[in-house]
């Protein structure tokens, strides 16, 4: 055996050891503790709303799929709700598009999306659907301008100009005029956007389409758009990382991501001409006075579900709902009841978990409209919730 062959034999044995330890590790892992269902049948109506206890006539297992943005809070809800009612819910944060597809194909009992469905998507859902707002989020611009630590102010025109590529330097008068006292460098702007399809992009481009006619005709809004310039990075973390690393970069991330990672972010002038800091409160404010579009004809009314560029003077302008997609009519009454009770609990009791997890709660008025939506769901033509 020469040296080369020996090396080869050694390689083989090391590989075998690695394989063996891998097998062991996977054998020891697994078997996660089962969440224990509790809650005894109470007097009165266990299957009514508000949800107080276990209901024996509802489905005990549900699957949901959709948006990643509300993933953390839905996971929390699923856990808490299981303690209360014993219902097992499996929510898969596969992305809004994947959720819409799964819901349309009926491979998931309910879907979740950060953006309202298009007419074509609504038409594709046999039996129809409702979109129930559950929690709110916001998108903020984050940037990396050398030697600037102040929170920069952006007019909507400046923001659109930057992402359109019309404003190319940080010391452009359109930016500088709003930031008196800040010395902006004569350096190039690099824009950073999401490369993966994302509800975050959907909200941001929806806002830009509302405030800039040029953006609306040239680019438009959607979960993936044809960006006029800049680099794409995957996920909030990717965008934040690219911005942090690239001097002169500007990108957009979810507010909760910026808060949790202590990223600095800019202030955008809202529709009332005020500079309001992005916060959970100013996000909730964006939905104040929100009126749910006519449930009978959701199609063509999507723009009314958008709350970007809110007219509320205290609102953060780039705010959004995230929606649960529930069937309009479901022949399986037990399943319908389970979905509705979960959605009811989430939009009521579930709201107490929002702030800890970085989401903005629904204002009372929106909770009321959510109730109306949930009460309209039928099973075989009969209303499910009393």
């Amino acid at each position, binding site marked *: 055996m020469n040296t080369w062959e020996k090396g080869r034999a050694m390689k083989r044995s090391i590989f075998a050891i690695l394989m063996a330890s891998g097998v062991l590790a996977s054998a020891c892992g697994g078997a996660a503790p089962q969440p224990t269902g509790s809650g005894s049948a109470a007097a009165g109506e266990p299957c009514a709303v508000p949800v107080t206890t276990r209901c024996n006539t509802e489905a005990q297992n549900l699957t949901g799929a959709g948006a990643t943005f509300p993933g953390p809070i839905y996971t929390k809800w699923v856990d808490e709700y299981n303690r209360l009612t014993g219902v097992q819910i499996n929510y898969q944060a596969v992305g809004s598009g994947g959720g819409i597809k799964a819901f349309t194909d009926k491979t998931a009992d309910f879907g979740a999306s950060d953006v309202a469905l298009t007419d074509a998507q609504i038409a594709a859902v046999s039996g129809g659907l409702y979109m129930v707002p559950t929690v709110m989020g916001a998108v903020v611009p984050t940037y990396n301008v050398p030697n600037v630590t102040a929170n920069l102010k952006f007019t909507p025109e400046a923001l659109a100009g930057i992402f359109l590529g019309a404003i190319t330097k940080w010391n452009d008068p359109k930016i500088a005029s709003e930031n008196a006292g800040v010395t902006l460098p004569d350096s190039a702007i690099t824009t950073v956007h999401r490369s*993966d399809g994302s509800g975050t992009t959907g909200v941001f481009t929806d806002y830009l389409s509302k405030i800039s006619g040029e953006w609306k005709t040239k680019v438009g809004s959607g979960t993936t758009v044809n960006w006029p310039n800049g680099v794409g990075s995957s996920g909030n973390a990717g965008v934040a990382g690219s911005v942090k690393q690239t001097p002169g970069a500007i990108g957009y991330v979810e507010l909760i991501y910026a808060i949790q990672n202590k990223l600095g972010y800019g202030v955008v002038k809202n529709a009332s001409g005020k500079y309001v800091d992005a916060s959970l409160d100013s996000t909730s404010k964006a939905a104040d006075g929100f009126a749910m579009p006519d449930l009978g004809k959701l199609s063509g009314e999507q723009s009314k579900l958008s709350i970007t560029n809110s007219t509320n003077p205290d609102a953060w302008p780039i705010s959004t709902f995230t929606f649960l997609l529930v069937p309009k009519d479901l022949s399986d009454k037990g399943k319908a009841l389970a979905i509705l009770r979960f959605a009811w609990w989430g939009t009521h009791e579930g709201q107490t978990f929002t702030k800890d997890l970085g989401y903005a709660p629904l204002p009372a008025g929106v909770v009321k409209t959510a109730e109306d939506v949930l009460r309209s769901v039928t099973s075989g033509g009969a209303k499910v919730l009393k």
Partner: protein
Amino acid sequence: MLVPLTLAAIALLIVIDSWPSLSRFGLSYFTTSVWDPVHLVFGAAAYVYGTIVTTLVAVVLATPVALGASIFLTEFAPRRIRGPVAYLIEILAYIPSIVYGLWAIFVMVPVMRDRVEPALQGSLGKVPVIGQLFSGTPVGLDLLSGGVVLAIMILPILTAVSREVLLAVPPTQREAMIGLGATRWEAVSLAVLPYARPGIIGGIVLGVARAFGETMAVTMVVGNSSRDISGSLFVPGYTMASAIANQFVEADSELYFSAIVEVALLLLLVAIVVNTIARLLIRRSVADRPQGAVV
């Protein structure tokens, strides 16, 4: 038997799924580079371009290094270090691509942006024609970075294959040359390398295949922007595999979805073309190879 069947089944499925896009855009899908999911206009030329450019950069950078390493390991290195060094190079192949991606984004990209790219621009950038490759603002997230990370990733397979091929060259080849009074380097360059050429090309083909399909690490540094085909390496680009990975999940309309699937079809086609060219090269190279010992 099963392999061609599976391949045919995959191809058929891809064609069926991409049919709406195939029939709607026809040839313009291959020749234009506007990718606009909002207005449902799709052209994948920039993706094909990005894939080919990053792969070329990778092969151009990795081949000399791999060849040098394998020649050193088989012909010149002291016997004691041959095994361990080869082992270390091959271990690079076991590193998951996400790890390469993270390393690239946190370590390589800043170096590329602050040092390598400005230096290239300052030197080669001034040369006519080639200078075009190094124009634009260095951002670090661009085709060149994508190519460099790919070069590192295909290095192990290139080295391993070239090394095995060089080891397989009959000792009589070298001995005959040395017997004629050649130096060791002359023996390698005139007798060993020509004999090993087909195998080395085969190794490059394997590297190209790896580079074509590589998704994660490239996606993290290539810039993911398909705006234009500019001829510069310093612009953000997009590869076919990255486009599929980034957009497949959220492709929410039928046409958009089928346009993404058509990228997969395109990837398959380009892979077949490249593989065919490579096989022809190998065949020619085998035919040209010196028969038996060189005397």
